[in-house]
């Protein structure tokens, strides 16, 4: 694991370490949060499980987008494929996770191989749109799968079974699944870290920087790009398998282009080409989506109180009318995104200080 954390001597390293510790220990201090009335234990864990799983998907996207310069606008398709693999197997009574997961990963890798082989001939926006096109094709296949619910989706009755190791009911199930997701995330981060700093990663990043030059140096750039594309697809398929288990439900919406868009937003928001950027991005994006309205309501209540104390209550309308404004929280979310782009170049990650070059 050494080397995963940027040295603890920098602020950046310390913040990252703190974040990982906080995430890792959540199951143990969640009851305390619950008791303090901050957030219920179950909800905190379910919500953060989702965050962790999507962070895995974002990390995988970052491998090709941040390090390889390949902007896949169809990355959610692997979430979908991973999810459908688990869902369809479960639907036919195959619950064994040791079958489901490798198959989900393998199929995703295969799909990535096919999509990559066709798309990687193109560059820039053409590549973006081609990956989108393939994802949309799969999406419509999902919509057409009437046997598995079409676009209504399919409920998964039982989660993947890992030789009975994971609890299947109640709080234990939630806690266990959180821990599994966290461990997978850490392993994936470690894998990506090794990968991008190894020779393979240097070749990949060089290809992003200047492909022609890399060819002139003797790198068969297509192969590196394709290999990265397949690895990313496989990891994302794993995230899909986890997500299907988490939501116990699959539907084509998992691979809709807007989901691919969300993944891109997470990566860019967090910081592309930085190991932990996508994690920050996923946390920020998903938690903002969840808590921004409540936060706004708090702020509005506070503002209303303050202003009405000064101007008199009647002048500014009822608190209720003000609180309705919180329904328009996406204005705030949009504004935050724009501010991050304009003033935090390099995403959230850059707020903690830029890493040394590379």
């Amino acid at each position, binding site marked *: 694991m050494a080397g995963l954390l940027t040295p603890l001597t920098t602020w950046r390293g310390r913040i990252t370490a703190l974040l990982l510790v906080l995430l890792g220990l959540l199951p143990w201090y969640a009851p305390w949060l619950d008791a303090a009335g901050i957030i219920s234990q179950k909800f905190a864990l379910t919500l953060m499980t989702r965050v962790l799983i999507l962070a895995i998907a974002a990390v995988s996207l970052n491998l090709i987008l941040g390090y390889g310069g390949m902007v896949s606008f169809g990355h959610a398709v692997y979430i979908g494929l991973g999810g459908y693999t688990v869902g369809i197997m479960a639907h036919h009574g195959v619950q064994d996770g040791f079958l489901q997961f490798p198959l989900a990963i393998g199929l995703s890798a295969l799909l990535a191989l096919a999509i990559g082989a066709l798309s990687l001939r193109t560059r820039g926006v053409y590549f973006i749109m081609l990956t989108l096109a393939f994802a949309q094709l799969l999406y419509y296949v999902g919509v057409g799968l009437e046997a598995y619910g079409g676009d209504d989706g399919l409920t998964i009755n039982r989660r993947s079974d890992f030789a009975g190791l994971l609890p299947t009911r109640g709080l234990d199930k939630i806690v266990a699944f959180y821990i599994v997701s966290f461990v997978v995330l850490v392993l994936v981060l470690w894998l990506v870290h*090794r990968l991008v*700093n*190894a020779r*393979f990663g*240097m070749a990949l990043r060089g290809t992003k*920087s200047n492909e022609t*030059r890399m060819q*002139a*140096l003797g790198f068969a750039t297509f192969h590196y790009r394709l290999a990265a594309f397949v690895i990313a697809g496989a990891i994302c398929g794993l995230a899909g398998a986890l997500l299907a288990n988490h939501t116990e439900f699959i539907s084509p919406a998992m691979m809709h282009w807007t989901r691919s868009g969300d993944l891109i937003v997470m990566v860019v928001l967090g910081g592309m080409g930085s190991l932990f950027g996508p994690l920050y991005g996923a946390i920020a994006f998903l938690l903002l989506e969840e808590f921004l309205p409540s936060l706004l309501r708090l702020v509005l209540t506070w503002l209303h109180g303050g202003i009405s104390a000064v101007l008199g209550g009647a002048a500014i309308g009822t608190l209720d009318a003000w609180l309705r404004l919180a329904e328009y929280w996406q204005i705030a979310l949009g504004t935050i995104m724009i501010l991050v782009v304009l003033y935090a170049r390099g995403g959230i990650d850059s707020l903690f200080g830029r890493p040394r070059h590379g």
Partner: protein
Amino acid sequence: MAETMLKVDSLVKRFGGLVATDSLSLDVRAGEVHALIGPNGAGKTTLIAQLSGFLQPDSGRITFDGRDITLLPAAARVRLGLSRSFQITSVLRDFTALDNVALAEQARQGHSFRFWRSARADRSLRAPGRAALEEVGLAHRADDPAASLSHGEQRQLEVAMAMACDPRLLLLDEPMAGMGPEESARMVDLLRRLRGRRTMLLIEHDMDAVFALADRITVLVYGRAIATGTPAEIRANEAVRTAYLGEAESG
């Protein structure tokens, strides 16, 4: 006479109506410095692009070490020992100067499907990289991002990368362009030292350098070789003077 390393046989490349390479034939012998000169737009860079695999010729054959490489992709040619530098600087701008040459070294060693060991900590890449920078006089900028180098320094890096591939045949497209007089002199010096160890196909408009280095010179005009010969022969060639050299420059 030394054996032929690179053989070009009636190569043709058209861009629309323009024939950029016009049934060109050319030999480069092992160990020689072969200069390619000619007016702007004569098709020198286009030839290099075809030799190195970045452009497909319309017809003709390229043989390297007796092997037909006409259809081989660019990267594969480098692995056979044929590498190029670019006239229009092409470096990895977000990498440091050292990373740039270390990547060249990595490519030379092969083995880039290594997924685990850190490449930046790999001495077998860094040390030869530093040496390459040293050679072109860029060691003091090893840890600066390539984008922040001045134009001339980027030109030096450009050449360093081509050399770090350790090719048997080096295709140099105006290596001296953009370098100051002192740096140019240093480069001439370097190339002179490499002479004999490496075969070189050198494109250059700096005639002092060409006449100082070349064993043989081919003159290209409108995609055709109008003359090939020793520096003395070329200097004396009337057609070459009117098409390309003009009156001798001072300085």
